[in-house]
């Protein structure tokens, strides 16, 4: 029996679910708003998850204006009131919104407040539950309090990366507009917000596809949902003809094939316009390869700037394809030591050219690499101006999307496997922007995001395609295939 079930005052989770649904009916018939089929079903799923307890996640992908907020607000009220009145237990419920300002959060707060006002008489006279509906806009919580002093606290908080909301803990959390939520903040700060006394947390992730994928976790989670977790304009119109009429006008206005209509009403994740590559395509690039010492090899190095990593990638050219052979990675800015290590790393691989990103680190670091690697490989610095960015990323993007760049599938060295995982992760988060008609690949705007592996690999491929070797030499055949 789950922890939550033990706390249901001897009730089985099924019994508690039926009790909550009875209460939802009682609340609903006192409101000027009736939930439709998909809202009732989704709400019941959430109620079941809360009664069952444990660590449960419920993704919901609904079209715009089909009633996400109404459903979540009524469900939160039902659960909160049932806990204090019938289960006689405190509960903390959170509404988490990516809004930087209070405006976004206010929508839910106002909806919740309005619903509470609608049923205030029933709550106070019929159920003996007091509602403390924030005296001012800044008040943190909505509270339902029974006269035997059990409290359901409903708190709306911001998921903005600067909000720093680490203190909160919830047994039921509603994540709103998850598509716009910063993935790292969500995973590291918001997900661990299971309530302290009893670790039990049900997370409802509700959103609509965006034009760009800001949150890869939500994107992956919502790609294979079914009704009622997935509700597009067709499902919604089936149950709400008024919605059908309204969305028909939107379809005419936006165009059926427009990305805006497809994402907001059809709930389709369209082309990932702001991503260098999507995870599925990236995974397909994994391929085991037997390296051949007679083939040309190139390296690309992204030198650490401040708190960063230096990454060097070695690739081998095999016809039209490029295969990554190994990665070097070092933390920090001890360039002397790194230059020695890069020399040691590159020596056995016998690369032709090492193309080094010299942007920002200055000539001394490049000179250090040139001197250390003299006789081993040609070290060519490149300053990534907007034009150079465009040249590098156009080639790199082409190689990636046409599957001409592969990375190893199996590893004998666990350290290389770890680096490969970073290589994959960084590619999946890299932002692809177009500035003045030129492509620029950048790290996402958040703490601890890196794309050093992407830059390093991009430079290696650029060197290989452009064949930047100053002295084209046929590689010497040596015994073995390198390390």
């Amino acid at each position, binding site marked *: 029996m789950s922890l939550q079930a033990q706390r249901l005052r001897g009730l089985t989770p099924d*019994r508690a*679910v*039926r*009790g909550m*649904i*009875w*209460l*939802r*009916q*009682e609340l609903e018939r006192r409101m000027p708003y009736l939930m439709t*089929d998909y809202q*009732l*079903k*989704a*709400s*019941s*799923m959430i109620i079941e998850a809360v009664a069952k307890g444990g660590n449960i996640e419920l993704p919901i992908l609904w079209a715009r204006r089909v009633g996400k907020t109404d459903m979540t607000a009524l469900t939160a009220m039902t659960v909160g009131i049932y806990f204090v*009145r*019938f289960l*006689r237990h405190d509960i903390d419920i959170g509404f988490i919104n990516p809004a930087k300002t209070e405006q976004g959060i206010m929508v839910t707060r106002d909806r919740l407040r309005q619903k509470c006002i609608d049923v205030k008489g029933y709550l*106070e*006279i*019929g*159920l*003996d539950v007091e509602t403390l509906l924030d005296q001012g806009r800044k008040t943190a919580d909505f509270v339902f309090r029974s*006269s*035997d*002093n*059990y409290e359901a606290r409903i708190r709306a908080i911001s998921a903005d990366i600067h909000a720093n909301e680490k203190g909160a803990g919830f047994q039921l959390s509603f994540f709103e507009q998850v598509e716009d939520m910063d993935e790292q903040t969500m995973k590291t700060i918001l997900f661990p917000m299971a309530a302290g006394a009893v670790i039990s947390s049900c997370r409802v992730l509700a959103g609509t596809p965006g034009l760009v994928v800001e949150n890869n976790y939500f994107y992956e989670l919502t790609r294979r949902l*079914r*009704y*009622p977790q997935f509700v597009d304009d*067709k*499902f919604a119109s*089936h*149950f709400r003809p008024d919605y059908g009429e309204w969305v028909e006008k939107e379809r005419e206005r936006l165009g059926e094939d427009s990305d805006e209509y497809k994402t907001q009403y059809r709930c389709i994740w369209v082309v990932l316009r702001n991503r260098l590559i999507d995870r599925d395509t990236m995974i397909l690039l994994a391929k085991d390869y037997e390296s051949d010492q007679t083939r040309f090899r190139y390296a690309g190095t992204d030198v650490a700037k401040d708190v960063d990593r230096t990454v060097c990638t070695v690739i081998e050219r095999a016809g039209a394809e490029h295969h990554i052979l190994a990665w070097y990675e070092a933390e920090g800015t001890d360039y002397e030591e790194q230059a020695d290590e890069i020399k040691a790393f590159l020596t056995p691989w016998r690369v032709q050219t090492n193309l080094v990103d010299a942007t920002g680190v200055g000539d001394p670091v490049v000179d250090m690499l040139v001197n250390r690697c003299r006789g081993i490989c040609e070290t060519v610095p490149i300053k990534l101006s907007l034009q150079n960015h465009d040249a590098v990323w156009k080639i790199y993007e082409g190689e990636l999307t046409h599957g001409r760049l592969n990375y190893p599938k199996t590893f004998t060295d666990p350290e290389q496997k770890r680096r490969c995982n970073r290589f994959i992760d960084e590619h999946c988060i890299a932002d692809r922007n177009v500035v003045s008609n030129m492509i620029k690949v950048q790290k996402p705007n958040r703490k601890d995001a890196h794309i050093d592996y992407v830059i390093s690999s991009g430079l290696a491929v650029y060197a290989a395609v452009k064949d930047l070797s100053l002295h084209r030499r046929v590689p010497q055949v040596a015994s073995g295939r390198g390390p």
Partner: protein
Amino acid sequence: MTKVERLEKRLEQLSGAGNVWIPSWLSAVGSGEEIAEWKAISRSYRREDLSERRLEFQREMREKYPDMPLTVEEQEEAGVERLRSDIAMQRREGLIREPSSSET
């Protein structure tokens, strides 16, 4: 009402002791004494103790007045029972999830 009585009433309101919830079933059948007992329970106990004593009081009242209106707990019990026996309602409320006719 004397000044002292007014002050006592005001004090009662401020402390919350005067705002005891009287359920509709109690005001329908309860005598003055029974209502006073309910108020005394409400003022004397908190949390778990209060809940248990109120339930106990409700049980005694039900035995004494079998025809009194349903308490909130009894309403919930009846609602749960109705839900359990009505398959169409279970389906409508999403307790039985079958593919909807509109699902494609």
